């Protein structure tokens, strides 16, 4: 009985720690990347929420923010980068384009949402979303990680 209690507590502590130390991946696709940069910049400073280390390599990072339109030419690369990330890994789909194609949904070269390529944990609406929205998505993702409700 006491073993069980210990295991669940450790699990919770691990999940709490994972959520509070996310390392995002420097991965800009389109317009939303500028708002992602604003969110990590001076005014919004999302290092406050424990994810300040933007890594340039997918192998170092555990959070992918798909910031912009995913085209059919780029989609295989997105999947490949996702595969290169180490477990546990999480995906935020930022903006209308990444979530559902956005204003380019009628185009012949645009993927209607990045969830056709990688599993997405949190979607953000907006074109582009404000940095506040991205920070809210990060908080939401942290809560989901703590509850164990993530895709991976």
């Amino acid at each position: 009985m006491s073993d069980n209690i210990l295991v669940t507590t450790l699990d919770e502590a691990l999940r709490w720690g994972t959520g509070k130390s996310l390392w995002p991946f420097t991965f800009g696709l389109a317009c939303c990347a500028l708002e992602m940069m604003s969110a990590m910049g001076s005014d919004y400073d999302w290092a406050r929420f424990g994810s300040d280390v933007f890594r340039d390599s997918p192998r170092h990072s555990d959070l992918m923010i798909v910031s912009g339109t995913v085209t059919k030419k780029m989609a295989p690369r997105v999947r490949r980068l996702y595969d290169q990330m180490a477990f546990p890994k999480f995906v935020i789909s930022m903006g209308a384009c990444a979530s559902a194609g956005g204003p380019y949904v009628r185009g012949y070269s645009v993927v209607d949402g990045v969830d056709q390529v990688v599993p997405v944990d949190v979607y953000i609406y907006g074109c582009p979303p404000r940095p506040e929205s991205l920070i809210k998505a990060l908080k939401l993702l942290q809560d989901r990680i703590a509850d164990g409700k993530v895709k991976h």
Partner: protein
Amino acid sequence: MQDKIVEVNFGPQHPSTHGVLRVKVKLDGEVIVDAQPIIGYLHRNAEKLSEMGYYPKAQIYVDRLDYAAALNMELGFVLSAEKLMDVQVPDRALWIRMMMVELNRIASHFIWLGTHGLDMGMLSPFFYCFREREKVFRILDEITGSRLLYNYFAIGGVYSDVTPKSLEMIKTWLSDFDKNLTEIENIFKKSYVYVARTKGTGKLGLDDTISYGVTGPMLRAAGKKWDLRKNKPYLHYDQINFDVPSQQAGDVYARMLVRIEEMHQSARIVAQVLDKLPAGDFYNKKYSKPMLVRIKATGESYIPTESPKGEFGIYLVGDGSAIPYRFRIRSPSFANLSAAPAMLIGYKIADMTATLSSMDPVFGEVDR
């Protein structure tokens, strides 16, 4: 040891490609012998989608071309459309447009400066630049209601008038802008590593610059004083005093100096517009609402404008309906990027990030 050419793939995911550029590089040791940019990773069919709706509907796609300077893109579109439809614009709207465009040029150059510092291994300019950029964005947010992509200019004027509060904000911002920018400038100029890495790197001579169709700060850094605001004035640029900065060297360092001086000049223009802003309507009252302009147009029009990256314009062909028949985008980044092989070959692989980031390519505009 025999000489061996190694092929290296740079991108499409790389922190210093400013988006999704891929460059196929052939290396002989450390020296680049061939570089071929491969584009198309952000092809979003902006031209064809714009030809599917009424003229004002094309504006959201125009916004997303050069997303770092959306208002400059809108200006190219509305000027061209107004010429095609023969729409008159009130004087106040023209002055507001000038002010907004210059504010957005400053914001765009701040992004470039911050990320250029990041590419050159300096983290602090990024935070300083974004601090200053947010001040510009607060003003733009107050006037247009949006942070990055505005949809603010309309055929026949602008969507909303400037508020007295926003004019106050601009005045406060102008009072210490030059001081703050000089502070950032000194971080670059006084950094020994930065100067050593950029002086003499990525050189492009004047002849090459002109034959590749390179425009904007890159052309001015190569020694030609060519600015469409001075040489072919649109809006009211002929009634305003400003200088066109230019350098002779044509390297990465010269481009940095030109862009920083341009920001000082843009602030000068904004200050002059504040003094000269006339009273009156902010859009043509002949049309009930700016977004409802559904004028049938015939003919063709093209007005080149000076965007932060170079000459930008939209060539419109109307076939007598309310939907554009042809919507051709002349994007400066695309032409600038075509000069990449000339700027990279002969230099070392470590100079590549400096050269690529000094071009300031924005991929919404390159791939369209």
